[in-house]
C-alpha cells in the first residue's frame, strides 16, 4: 500500500497543475481515507473472493496522459463537460449523494478518486434520445507494465435515452492493472441500456466499481460480459431512489485456465414500487474461479418491491471453482422477492446423446456451454450486440479457434 501513497505524493504536484479542479477537490480526503483503510483484505465481506493486494503489489507505470476525445456525441473529457459536474462527481458512489464520504466507502474507489488524472463525462440532455449506441473502447497497449486509472461519469437527464457500450481489449504481453470507477446518475424517466465487455489477456487485472443512482420511472439495464481476462473483480451498486423504476442486471462469464472472475452486486431498494431483475451465468472450466455475490436490500418502507435474483453456474471441470452467494435483506412487509443459485456440472447424458450422433466430445461440451451462456445473452436488448456476442462466444468456446488465432494462449 505504501507504494501507492508514495506514488500519490510524487504525482500530486503534476495532478494539481494538469487535472480538472473538480477532480483535484476530492483528492486529499479520499487519499487520507484510503491510507487509513488500505486495500480490502478477505475480512472485507465484499472482497472475500479476490486477493486485491496481490493484484496491486507489482510496480506498474502509471499513465497520466490526458484523454483525447474527438467528436463522439455525448462524450466529453471532464474539462469540456457541458455542465458543472461537481454535484455528481464522487457523490454517486454512496446510497445517497447527501451522505458524507464515510469510512465505509470502497477502498479501491477511494484510491481511484485520489489518482484520477482525467475523467470521461457522458452527458445526455433532458428528453434527448441518443440514436446510435455510444461506444467507448479501451485498448491496453504498450511495452511496459501499466496501471490505468479510469474514471467515468454518466449523467442521464430526465427522460434521456441511451445505449452505452464499454469494451476493454488488451494487446501484447505486458501486464495491466485497471482501476475503474463509473458513476451513473439516471434522473426521472431516463432509460439506459449499458454494456460492459472484457476481452483481455491473462496478464490483465481489472478492478471496477460501478455506481448507479436511479430516479423515478427510470429503466436501467446493465449487461456485463467477461469473455477473457486474468483477474477481474466487478462491483455494481444500484441505488433505487425514485418510485416505479426498474433495473435489470445481466451477466455472462466465461472463464477457463486460471482466470478469476468475481462479480459483487448490491441493489438497494430505498423506495416503494421498484422492480429489479438479476441473471448471472458463469461457465468455469480448467482451474478457473468464478464468484458471484449479489445482495438485494429492501429498506423499510420500500413496499411493493419486486425482485428476482438468479445465479446459475456450470462447473465444466473438476478443478474449476464456483462461489455463489445470493442475499436478500428485507425490511418491508409487502414485497415479492425471490433468489436462487445453482452450481451444476455438464449433463453426461446429453453429452453422450450428442456423441451418439457423431459429434465429438469436445464439440459437444462446447455446444452445452454455449447453450448455457446463450440464455443470458438472449436477455440482452441491443440486437446487433447480441448477435455479435453469440459469434464471439462461439469462437471463444471452440478451442480450435482460440488457440489458432489469439494472443491469449501464447
Amino acid at each position, binding site marked *: 500500500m505504501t507504494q501507492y501513497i508514495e506514488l500519490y505524493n510524487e504525482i500530486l504536484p503534476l495532478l494539481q497543475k494538469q487535472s480538472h479542479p473538480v477532480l483535484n477537490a476530492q483528492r486529499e480526503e479520499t487519499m487520507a481515507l484510503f491510507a487509513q483503510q488500505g486495500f480490502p483484505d478477505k475480512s472485507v465481506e465484499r472482497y472475500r473472493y479476490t486477493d486485491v493486494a496481490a493484484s496491486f503489489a507489482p510496480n506498474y507505470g502509471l499513465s497520466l496522459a490526458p484523454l483525447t476525445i474527438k467528436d463522439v456525441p455525448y462524450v466529453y473529457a471532464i474539462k469540456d463537460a457541458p455542465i458543472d459536474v461537481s454535484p455528481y462527481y464522487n457523490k454517486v458512489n454512496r446510497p445517497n449523494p447527501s451522505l458524507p464520504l464515510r469510512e465505509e466507502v470502497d477502498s479501491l474507489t477511494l484510491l481511484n478518486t485520489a489518482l484520477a488524472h482525467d475523467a470521461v463525462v457522458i452527458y445526455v440532455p433532458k428528453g434527448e434520445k441518443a440514436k446510435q449506441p455510444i461506444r467507448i473502447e479501451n485498448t491496453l497497449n504498450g511495452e511496459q507494465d501499466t496501471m490505468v486509472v479510469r474514471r467515468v461519469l454518466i449523467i442521464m437527464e430526465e427522460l434521456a435515452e441511451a445505449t452505452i457500450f464499454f469494451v476493454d481489449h488488451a494487446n501484447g504481453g505486458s501486464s495491466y492493472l485497471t482501476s475503474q470507477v463509473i458513476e451513473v446518475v439516471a434522473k426521472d424517466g431516463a432509460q439506459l441500456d449499458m454494456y460492459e465487455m472484457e476481452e483481455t489477456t491473462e496478464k490483465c487485472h481489472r478492478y471496477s466499481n460501478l455506481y448507479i443512482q436511479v430516479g423515478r420511472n427510470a429503466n436501467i439495464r446493465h449487461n456485463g460480459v467477461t469473455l477473457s481476462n486474468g483477474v477481474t473483480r466487478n462491483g455494481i451498486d444500484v441505488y433505487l431512489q425514485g418510485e416505479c423504476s426498474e433495473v435489470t442486471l445481466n451477466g455472462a462469464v466465461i472463464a477457463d485456465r486460471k482466470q478469476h472472475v468475481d462479480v459483487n452486486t448490491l441493489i438497494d431498494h430505498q423506495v416503494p414500487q421498484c422492480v429489479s431483475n438479476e441473471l448471472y451465468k458463469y461457465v468455469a472450466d480448467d482451474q478457473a474461479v468464478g464468484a458471484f455475490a449479489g445482495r438485494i436490500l429492501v429498506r423499510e418502507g420500500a413496499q411493493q418491491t419486486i425482485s428476482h435474483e438468479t445465479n446459475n453456474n456450470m462447473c465444466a471441470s473438476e478443478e474449476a471453482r464456483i462461489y455463489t452467494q445470493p442475499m436478500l435483506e428485507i425490511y418491508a412487509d409487502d414485497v415479492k422477492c425471490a433468489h436462487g443459485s445453482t452450481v451444476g456440472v455438464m449433463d453426461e447424458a446429453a453429452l*453422450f446423446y*450428442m456423441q*451418439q450422433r*457423431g459429434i465429438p466430445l469436445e464439440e459437444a461440451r462446447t455446444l452445452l456451454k*454455449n*447453450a448455457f451462456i446463450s440464455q443470458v445473452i438472449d436477455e440482452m436488448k441491443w440486437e446487433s450486440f447480441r448477435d455479435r456476442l453469440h459469434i464471439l462466444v462461439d469462437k471463444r468456446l471452440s478451442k480450435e479457434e482460440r488457440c489458432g488465432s489469439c494472443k491469449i494462449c501464447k
Partner: protein
Amino acid sequence: MLEIKNLHATVGGKEILKGVNLTINDGEIHALMGTNGAGKSTLSNVIVGNPAYEVTEGSITFDGQDLLAMSADERANAGIFMSFQMPVEIPGVSMTNFMKAAVNARRKARGEEPMKAAEFIKLMKEKRQLVEIDQKLMSRSVNEGFSGGEKKRNEIFQMAMLEPTFCILDETDSGLDVDALRIVATGFNKLRTEKTSAMVITHYQRLLDYIKPDIVHVLIDGKIVMTGGPDLAQKIEDEGFDWIKNNA
C-alpha cells in the same frame, strides 16, 4: 456386418452381459426380446459406446473394424445409430444447430467439406416430411417440451438425416399410440436400404407387425438363450417367457 463374440459387460460393477454372441448381416433385421433387466439396453449401450458401461471380455466388430477401440462419436460416424428409449432434452441447443453439428461431424469424419446452408435446409425439409415431424420442433431445443411421440419421431428424423447402416431401435414403440407407431415404423422402413441392418428391441409384437424381423433372439439373464424366426415373437406375445426360462 456386426459381429459380437462372447461379450461380457458390467454397469456400476455389476455384471449384466454374460457372454453374448450375435451376428447381424447387412440387410437383416433382428428383434431382441427378453424380460426386464435381461440386458437388452445394456447390449445396445455397449454397442454404441456409452462410457457408463464397461466391457470386461469379448469383442464387437463392425464392417471389420474393432468397435470397442472406437469412441462413441467414431462409432456413430462409422454408421451406427441408436434410437434412444428415453431421448434426453438438451436445453438451449436448437434442433437445427444440433443436426448441423451432427451432419457436419459425419462429413468431417469422411473428409468432406461442411454442408452448404441451402443444401442443409433442403435436406432438413425433405427428411422432416418423411417422418411427418412438425417444422416448429426444429427451432426448439433438442427434445425440450416434446411429447413422448414427438421424441420418438424425432429419433427417426435424426436417423433419416444421418443415414446410418446399422440401427438400434431401443423400445421405440414404448409410449407411442398406434398412429404414431405406424408413422415411426413406416418412416424407418422408407429409410432402409439393402445394406441397412437393425436390432429392434421390443416387448411387443405390434412393432414387429410393421418392422418385420428376419431373426428373433431372446435375451435372458445376460445371454441369448433362444433364436428363431418371426413366429418366435408371436409365440412370446401369446405365451410369455416362462416356457423359455423353463427350457433354459
